[in-house]
């Protein structure tokens, strides 16, 4: 495992903590009926978005999923505009048209959350094609869940990227479930990363709880892509702390399983532990970061909350681009 310097370690911690804080606040707002629709919490999976996006520039691209807040934050989004979107404000990233499942931030290369499982995979592939075609060294990363791996889009995209040697990284967040379906019932193969071989591309399998492991693997994959050596498939094992969506009765899980995993599987607690143990930073410093984040979230929500409601007046004009 590559050694992570202090700045990187703290940045990874900060990103993970921000994601967790965002999800906690979003969940709270949802519970207060201030958020409409559906939200899917990324809590528990923060190490993946943080570890991967640490290698990306603003002009690199990502595609995200229905569980997209984490990727969005890790790619540098503004928290206020994210909250504003959830609250249906004109000041939100999508001016209230998209909501949680469609937040995009093209200024930072985020090509959008996606409500279609597997829908972002070919789109990232196309972004990688752009980089290759225009001769830039940009990279495209697609995040998706274990469930998406059994979509045809996964298959067709990985093959295209392999034969065209595209600068793409495919990141499967294996959080053990696709809604109520446990991953064991969705696959007859033990190691999902094995599928990479069938496309003639390297497959990597990492512990998605350990941000250092994710960071190391993604570093290799992104470097490979940037150097024109082609795509990589990474499977990061993980666990979602919450239900599939806010309000999920989780009939498909036992209390024991949930509690056991939650405790055992917390990338932020883990990161805190090694940062302090390895003397990268003190607990007090981390507490300071936590407080800064809490303040930033409070401010972001306050800002979002005072934004004007999204205007319905020009909806039909938003459909087509004009010259």
């Amino acid at each position, binding site marked *: 495992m590559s050694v992570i310097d202090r700045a990187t370690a703290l940045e990874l911690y900060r990103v993970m903590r921000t994601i967790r804080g965002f999800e906690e606040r979003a969940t709270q707002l949802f519970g207060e009926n201030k958020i409409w*629709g559906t939200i899917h919490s990324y809590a528990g999976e923060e190490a993946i978005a943080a570890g991967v996006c640490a290698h990306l520039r603003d002009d690199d691209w990502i595609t995200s999923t229905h569980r997209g807040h984490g990727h969005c934050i890790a790619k540098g989004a503004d928290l206020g505009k994210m909250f504003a979107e959830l609250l*249906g404000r004109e000041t939100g990233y999508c001016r209230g048209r*998209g909501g949680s499942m469609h937040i995009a931030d093209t200024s930072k290369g985020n090509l959008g959350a996606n409500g279609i499982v597997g829908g972002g995979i070919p789109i990232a592939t196309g972004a990688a094609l752009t980089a290759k075609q225009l001769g830039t060294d940009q990279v495209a990363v697609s995040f998706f869940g274990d*469930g998406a791996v059994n*979509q045809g889009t996964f298959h067709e995209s990985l093959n295209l990227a392999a034969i065209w040697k595209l600068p793409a990284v495919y990141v499967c967040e294996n959080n053990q479930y696709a809604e109520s379906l446990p991953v064991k019932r969705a*696959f007859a193969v033990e190691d999902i990363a094995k599928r990479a071989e069938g496309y003639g591309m390297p497959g990597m399998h990492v512990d998605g709880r350990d941000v250092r492991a994710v960071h190391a693997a993604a570093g290799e994959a992104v470097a490979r892509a940037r150097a024109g050596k082609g795509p990589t498939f990474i499977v990061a094992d993980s666990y979602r702390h919450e239900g599939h969506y806010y309000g999920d009765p989780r009939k498909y899980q036992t209390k024991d399983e949930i509690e056991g995993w939650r405790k055992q599987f917390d990338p932020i607690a883990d990161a805190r532990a090694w940062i302090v143990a390895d003397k990268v930073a003190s607990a007090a410093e981390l507490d300071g970061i936590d407080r800064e984040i809490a303040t930033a979230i409070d401010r972001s929500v306050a800002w979002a909350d005072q934004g004007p409601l999204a205007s319905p007046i020009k909806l*039909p004009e*938003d459909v087509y681009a004009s010259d």
Partner: protein
Amino acid sequence: MQATEARAPAATREMFYNEALGDALRLEMQRDERVIVIGEDIAEHGGAFQVTAGLLDKFGPTRIRQTPISEIGIVGAAVGAALTGLRPVVELMYVDFAGLAMDQIVNQAAQNRFMFGGQARVPMVLRTQGGSGRGNAAQHSKSLEAWFAHIAGLKLVMPSTPADAKGLLTAAIRDDNPVIFLEHKLLYRTKGPVPEGEHVVPLGQADVKRAGTDLTIVTWSREVLFSLDAAAKLADEGIAAEVVDVRTLVPLDLETILGSVRKTHRLLVVHEAIKRGGYGAEIAALVAEEAFDDLDAAPKRLAGLETPIPYAQHLEKSVVPQVDDIVRAAKELVG
């Protein structure tokens, strides 16, 4: 013709729309072991809208066959199963995902019988749900009935009440053709009296849900409820609207529609799907073709705006006909 239930059932019970659908599934699965349900999250979770709740315990995991997220694989497997002796009922979680499976629905399920010169039957039901109203935004809120209506070989059902939901689903399962069965996400928690035990509503019969003389509102799915509310408001203003719930879009009960228009001389078609290319165009065009001389005013359509469904609640409502929009349109038509 008016709705004529195949049998007059003895007793009714108040049920939610999703319970009524589950009831039909349960009864048909009991009646015929070839009936199986295939789909995502239909087992322990009971389906995204709780239609299959309880069925896993009753029928076990082979007949309530939960799948990975593989829409075209699932629908294709249902086609193959239907061709070889099962009567599968597929649950596609959102009609918006049909775009992943249209090839199997259209090129295979709908056409196999015809292409094979009559050698095959494809007795399957594709249950799914559409519509806006829950803040699920553009990829989970569409109304796509127009796609299916345009395909030769499919039947197309869109029930608006719990009783119709049960009776039509029963008929769909017993039909030897592929039937697209479109539910609405905001109807699942509506309640109404539902006949107990076997209840069949034949495909191809519209239902006059409210009689009237001043204009005919032809509609389906959730807009039936909106139209009934609108008709009540219109009645207060002395306008008697007749509300025709088409229930099955294919085959279409054109007689009932024409019969109503010949009485009221005014047609308003109301649907949630966007207007351009919506099935309302077909109905308006048919009425214009077949009853031109009976019309006292131009046939009118009230339908969704030409935009994807936006997320925010107030935006969402602004692009889809609401009760007051129907009232307004009806008054314009009559006035």
